[in-house]
Structure formats: C-alpha cells, structure tokens
C-alpha cells in the first residue's frame, strides 16, 4: 500500500495509535491503542464475531508469535481503492442505522482531528474533505480466512483473535525454520504471498512465552522490526507496559489508572489479596500476567463449517417485505441441507452484497437450539429492523454458523415418513412438502444433477413494474 510507504517517507511514527488510530484507542500512548477488550476472543476491530471458532481442549503451544495488522479493515479498503490512500479517509462503524460513528481513520484524517467513536457530523465538521467508507465485512472476513489458511501451512497451531490479529504457536518450529527471527520472517513471507506488500509491511510481530507476552511484544514493535522476548526477560519486559494492555474489563483498567497505577511494574508492587479484594478475579489475573506467572498457550482453533445459502435477485431489492420473504426461503433451504445432519441451530448470520459494492451483515445467537424456520428468521428480522441494509440488496446470504444437539428426532410413528399413500388426504401445513413430491424431486436430481422444478415466489408484489412482482425460484426441498 502506497500509503504506508508514503508514511515512512514522511517519517511519521508508525507506532500503534499514532499513525493509525483505532476505535477506543488512546492515541497518546504506546500499546494502549489496541488493548484487548475483554479477553483473547476480542480485540482490535473485534472481528471474532465472524470467526465462529471454539478452542480445542489441547495443551497448545507455550511460545507464541503474535502478528498484528492495526486498522486491518481500513488498510484493506485502501488497498482496494489506492487513489484514496493520500486522502482523509474514515471507515464507518458497522451495524448502526442511526447516529453513525467513525470506526477507523486514516493518518491524514487523524491529523485533522478525526477520531474513532466520533459522530459522522463531528468528523465532517473537523475535516470537510473526509471520505467516508461503508464497511464491507464480507471482504474483511475473506481476507482473514486467507490469512489463517496461509499461516496454517506454517504451523497447525493458529489462533485468531479478531480481524488483523493472529497468534501462532511456535513450539518446535526451531528445528524446521531456525531461530525465532527466521520464524517471524517465514510468517511474514507467507503473508506476502497472499496480500499486497504494503498491507503486510504494516504488520507488527512479537514473540514471547504466552499470548499476553506475544501481544505486548507485537504492540510495542515497529513495522519490520519484530520484538522477541525470551522467557527470562519477560517479567522485566512487562515493567513499562501500560495496564491498558491487560485483557481484563476496561473498567478495571480505568480504576487502576485513577488509582495512579499506570504500568504493570507498578501493579506488581501491590499485594495480591488487595487486588483480589478490589477487582475480584480480574485483579488476580492481572497480577499473574504482570508477574509473568500466567502463560496462556496458543491453542489451535477449530472452525465448524457453516451451512451457507444465498439468493441473487434479478434487480437490487430495497423493500423489507421482499427481504423477509427471501430470508424465509433461505432458512428453508439451509435447514433442508443434508449437511445439517439433523442438528439444531444455535447461531445464524444474515448478510447481503449491496448494490454498488460493499456488504452488510447481522448476526444472532438463538436463545435456544432450534430447527424451526420461523424461530431462526424472527430474530434476524428483528435485527434487520434495527440495522437494515444501507442500500439495495443484490444477493442475500444466510449462514447457519453454530449447531447444537440434534433436534426433535423424527418419531418412529411419524405418519408423514410413511410415504405419499399414508399422507394422502391429510392436510399439509403451510410450506410443508409431501414426501411423495420430495421423493420425485430426489429422483429427478439423480437423473439431471439438479432439481428442474420451480415455484412462484412473491418478490415485490406491490411494485409498479410488473416483472418485479413475482419470480421463479428453484424448488429443492
């Protein structure tokens, strides 16, 4: 990215929070700009909501390498639109329909006084030439996928922690790749293979025992100069580290700072019972990290394969009723996929590719596992009402992201499973497909490779343009 080159040429510091600011960043101090919010699962740009991963219960790798690309999403946008690189650019926060706020800002915008978290009106009044970009979560998630894929070739112990931040377990890599500096080089060269050089050049790398140490090392590193901390120097290395780096409740950090405790070195001088009395478990953990007694190993993350369905509209659709109808169709399709194997659904995500580029997503965890279309669609409709797609939708996507135990099994005495003869004459519920038709379609699919049947669906029944009102949709129950 030419922007980074130009930053370096202008001699602008590239420490986190100075050249590039991030939501919630303290831009005056090193490291605090990207302190994890509440744990390893969240972090700068907290993209873990889209990762759907759960750590496997394995010992993991004690030695960790942290690769961190601050303002990853904005940098991806600038790679995609290089002409914006030398201008004032800000990325809007995702998932808000009213009172949009700024999420990430470019160096120029930061110089003009634009800060993450500001309202759009405030930002524009500070910088009239500000270019605002809509977030494109699908694009960012695809980049994260690519990153994880390429790093997995290096080591199987890869643990993402938000978009743009990933931990690699490096235990045992010495024999394969040599000294730690060589290992960092290998990881970066792997990224260079799949990402444009300017994007990778902004990566900060840190290696230390445990994820906390690696993260602190990466956050204090400069681009192209990884920080590698051996175990015997870890405690001393933490002495100057601000308490904001601790992956504890931000309120705990605020209270520590109000009490005048600004670094981990100062925190270490406090007795453990006092910390526990004041902050509970967070206080105990904070002390354990500060004294390097707690080493969190990197654990390989397992990503369950989601079930994805999509529907492309002939013309971009902006009416909510049409999108609701399409959501129902998608939920039916997703639930009928054999890959669900009878499992109930606990997490769903609805997304869209928007007219004129960009994407939109809402996600929800279901209150209880279900395999009922309406129970899946209802919370998504509610989310859509709160944060609707900002533009007309070209393609609607539904993902069943997490699964629970198999839902109500088909009863042994379920008459519907006995075939068409048994169900003849019995009323079918709305949307239910008779098993005889289901069998016929199965046979046709075997012969043709796909279902040749269609059904008429309402697209935009009140449209003034007749060809927009109804459409044919593949019928594949």
């Amino acid at each position, binding site marked *: 990215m030419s922007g980074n080159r130009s930053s370096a040429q202008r001699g602008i510091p590239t420490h986190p929070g100075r050249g590039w600011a991030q939501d919630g960043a303290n831009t005056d101090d090193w490291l605090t700009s990207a302190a994890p919010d509440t744990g390893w699962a969240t972090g700068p740009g907290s993209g873990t909501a889209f990762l759907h991963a759960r750590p496997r219960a394995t010992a993991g790798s004690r030695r960790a390498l942290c690769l961190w690309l601050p303002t990853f999403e904005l940098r991806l946008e600038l790679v995609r639109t290089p002409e914006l690189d030398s201008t004032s650019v800000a990325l809007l926060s995702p998932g808000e329909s009213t009172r949009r706020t700024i999420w990430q800002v470019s160096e120029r915008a930061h110089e003009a006084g634009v800060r993450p978290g500001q309202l759009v009106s405030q930002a524009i009044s500070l910088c009239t030439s500000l270019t605002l970009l809509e977030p494109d979560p699908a694009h960012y998630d695809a980049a994260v996928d690519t990153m994880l894929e390429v790093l997995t070739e290096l080591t199987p112990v890869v643990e993402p922690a938000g978009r743009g931040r990933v931990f690699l377990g490096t235990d045992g890599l010495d024999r394969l790749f040599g000294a730690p500096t060589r290992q960092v080089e290998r990881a970066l060269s792997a990224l260079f293979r799949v990402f444009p050089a300017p994007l990778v050049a902004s990566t900060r790398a840190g290696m230390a025992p445990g994820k906390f140490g690696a993260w602190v090392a990466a956050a204090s590193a400069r681009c192209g100069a990884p920080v590698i901390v051996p175990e015997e120097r870890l405690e001393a290395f933490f002495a100057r580290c601000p308490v904001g780096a601790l992956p504890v409740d931000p309120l705990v950090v605020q209270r520590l700072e109000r009490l005048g405790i600004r670094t981990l070195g100062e925190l270490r001088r406090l007795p453990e019972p006092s910390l526990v009395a004041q902050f509970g478990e967070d206080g105990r953990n904070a002390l354990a990290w500060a004294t390097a007694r707690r080493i969190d190993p990197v654990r390989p993350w397992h990503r369950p394969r989601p079930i994805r369905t999509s529907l492309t509209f002939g013309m971009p659709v902006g009416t909510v009723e049409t999108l609701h109808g399409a959501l129902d169709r998608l939920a039916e399709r997703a639930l009928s996929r054999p890959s669900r194997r009878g499992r109930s659904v606990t997490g769903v995500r609805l997304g869209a590719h928007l007219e004129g580029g960009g994407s939109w997503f809402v996600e929800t965890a279901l209150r209880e596992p279900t395999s009922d279309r309406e129970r899946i669609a209802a919370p998504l409709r509610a989310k859509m009402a709160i944060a609707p797609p900002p533009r007309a939708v070209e393609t609607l996507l539904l993902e069943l992201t997490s699964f629970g135990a198999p839902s109500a099994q088909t009863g042994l005495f379920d008459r519907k499973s006995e075939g068409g003869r048994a169900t003849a004459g019995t009323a079918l519920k709305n949307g239910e497909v008779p098993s005889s038709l289901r069998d016929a379609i199965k046979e046709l699919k075997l012969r043709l490779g796909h279902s040749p049947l269609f059904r008429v669906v309402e697209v935009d029944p009140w449209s003034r343009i007749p060809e927009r*009102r109804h*459409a044919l949709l593949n019928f594949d129950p």
Partner: protein
Amino acid sequence: MKPPSRNPDHRPRLKPLGQPRAVDVRTDEHGEPVHVRLPGRTARRVAVVRERWRIDDEWWRQSISREYRIVVLDDGKVITLYEDLSEGTWFVQRA
C-alpha cells in the same frame, strides 16, 4: 455415484416472471398504436385502447419511463402494451 451437474453454475437465482417481449407496433400521427404484430403472429388492428397509465421510476439507477396501454385487438384479444419512452420501442407484457 452422483452424476455431474448439467448446470455447473446452478446457483439459486430468482427468475423474474412477466418479462416484457418486444413487439412490432405501427402508430398513427398521435403516437397511438394502430397495428400490433405479436411475436410469431400476423399483424392485428387495434380496435380500442381500453386504459392507459405511465410509470416513471428508479431515476437514481437506470431510469424507467414507460407508457402502458391495455388494448383490444380486432380478434377480441386483450393485451397490455407499453412504449419505452427512453428508447421509443414497444413491448407486450403480462401485467
């Protein structure tokens, strides 16, 4: 063994119904349809124009400007025609 799909790009896609079809229309000096030749048929005289309305929409995208007419042909058939005002072409559509 699963047979190969004959349509490798068999992605779910909505196929609009009621797509307009181009027709040959002869008009009088006022621009009103006089003769209509539907695809694959012989030309028919327009007996009466029963109803007409105009649509102007989607000016922010690719503007749609149509003048619709429900006409009765001399053989008694009732069809819906529209003139695309941006291109001056005629279409028949099931409205």
